[in-house]
């Protein structure tokens, strides 16, 4: 991570090294532009919630950040590493400091929960002994409240448990940047609130930068230090929830309104 220090908001008091930066990023699928000249930064220890109507490029932004898809133009920096034109080896290096919680959790369904968490440790941290890996898995599962479910298969878990398991896998390597795709989708209000608690814990205890794609206004206001609102590929608003409440764009005010 580089040492560039930027002010992130008039109201937010988070200052720190940049964890992820979009500079004039454009991405189209066929004739449809899903991101059009989008720029923003997220600092270490900060949570940015990406909101917007469906199909406005929120999930695409996450996939761009982790290099699963490439931008048509613009630059994307993870820490000090430019990844827009990075090759697989460079991406692999950058991804070691990142975690991704997928909307469906995307657990490997032929592995137990324990093996899902062991896999990245076995592959990426060859210095760890099997006992140390076991211990790291146990600790992470305990953090998310799944310590008794280690030997269960993913299809034996409920929706909320799968989300927590996905989060545990994303956290097992202690990432500096965590990307979260719709953490509350398909969950009841109490369970999604529990996931929000875990995300707040991650931000506070590990000082992990979070980029969260969500439609859940309540969760975004609670977890996000700032909210970015995308509409038709453009970044319409970026700031704290109270700043956006006064936005000149009606779409922004509607999207972040709790009522």
């Amino acid at each position, binding site marked *: 991570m580089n040492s560039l220090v930027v002010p992130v908001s008039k109201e937010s008091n988070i200052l720190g090294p940049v964890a992820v930066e979009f500079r004039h990023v454009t991405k189209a699928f066929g004739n449809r532009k899903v991101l059009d000249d989008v720029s923003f930064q997220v600092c270490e220890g900060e949570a940015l919630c990406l909101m917007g109507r469906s199909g406005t490029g929120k999930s695409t932004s996450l996939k761009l950040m982790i290099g699963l898809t490439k931008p048509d133009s613009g630059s994307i920096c993870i820490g000090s590493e430019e990844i827009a034109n990075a090759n697989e080896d460079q991406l*692999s290096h950058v*991804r070691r400091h990142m975690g991704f919680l997928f*909307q469906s959790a*995307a657990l*490997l369904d032929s592995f137990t929960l324990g093996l899902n968490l062991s896999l*990245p440790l076995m*592959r*990426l941290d060859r210095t760890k002994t099997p006992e140390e890996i076991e211990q790291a898995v146990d600790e992470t599962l305990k953090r998310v409240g799944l310590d008794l479910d280690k030997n269960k298969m993913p299809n034996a878990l409920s929706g909320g448990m799968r989300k927590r398991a996905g989060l545990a896998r994303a956290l097992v390597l202690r990432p500096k940047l965590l990307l979260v795709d719709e953490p509350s989708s398909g969950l009841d209000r109490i369970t999604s609130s529990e996931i929000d608690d875990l995300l707040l814990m991650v931000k506070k205890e590990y000082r992990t930068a979070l980029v969260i794609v969500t439609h859940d206004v309540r969760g975004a206001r609670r977890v996000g230090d700032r909210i970015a609102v995308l509409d038709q590929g453009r970044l319409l608003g970026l700031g704290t929830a109270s700043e956006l409440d006064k936005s000149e764009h009606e779409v922004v005010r509607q999207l972040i309104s709790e009522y």
Partner: protein
Amino acid sequence: MRKFFTFVGEVSVFGLKGLFEAFRPPFEWEFFLNEIVEIGWRSLPLILSAGLALGIVLSMHTRGTLVQFGAEALIPSLQSASFFNELGPLITALLVAGRVGAGIGAGLSNMRVTEQVDAIESLSIDSFKLLVVTRIVACILIMPMLTLFMDFSSLAGGFLSERLASHISAQLYLDRAFKSIEWANFIPPTLKTSVFGLIIGTISGFYGYTTDEGSEGVQHAATNSVVLSSLLIILVDVILVKAIFFLFPRNAV
């Protein structure tokens, strides 16, 4: 036409990449052994039962004809020659294409649709090596072994049929079955099934790994994997048989 050649090119590059990556570390031993179990061990009941049944059926058919010429003593050697040279390898490949090809196509495309492939990539793990290369290599290595099981179970089926019909002893049946079989009749046709394994692994891996049609893609991947693998196996078999006859001229006699 251009679309066809593009497809052929893409599948060829996919298969060659799979072969090349198989020799490049890191080697995914655990996943490879899982695939050996999935593709080999779990196909065994199908192969053994199909071989036994086909052996019985072939024996019954040939008996009806050969008895008319007083040549029923040739039934064991006809049975072994048919299965070791052609039927065993080809039927094994078609059965594996049906069971394993559909499984690989549907399994990988389901992983793609449910973002499991993306999840593996996001963990800095090469999903192609982990999911595709292991399956291709397992198919290549396991096919000759499954073919041997098919060959010998068909012989067992043939023996059962003959035993009931003529009370032939196992010793005499085996003597007659292997009398005209040479290594050249046995090794090349068995080893050619590795090429069938490469076809099954590559085609089904390609359809499964590259799908982008959502849940509908799972169905397409499974169907296309079986259809194209089976067709290619039969077409490539013609070339391989010709090549074996060229390299081992005594087989052609």
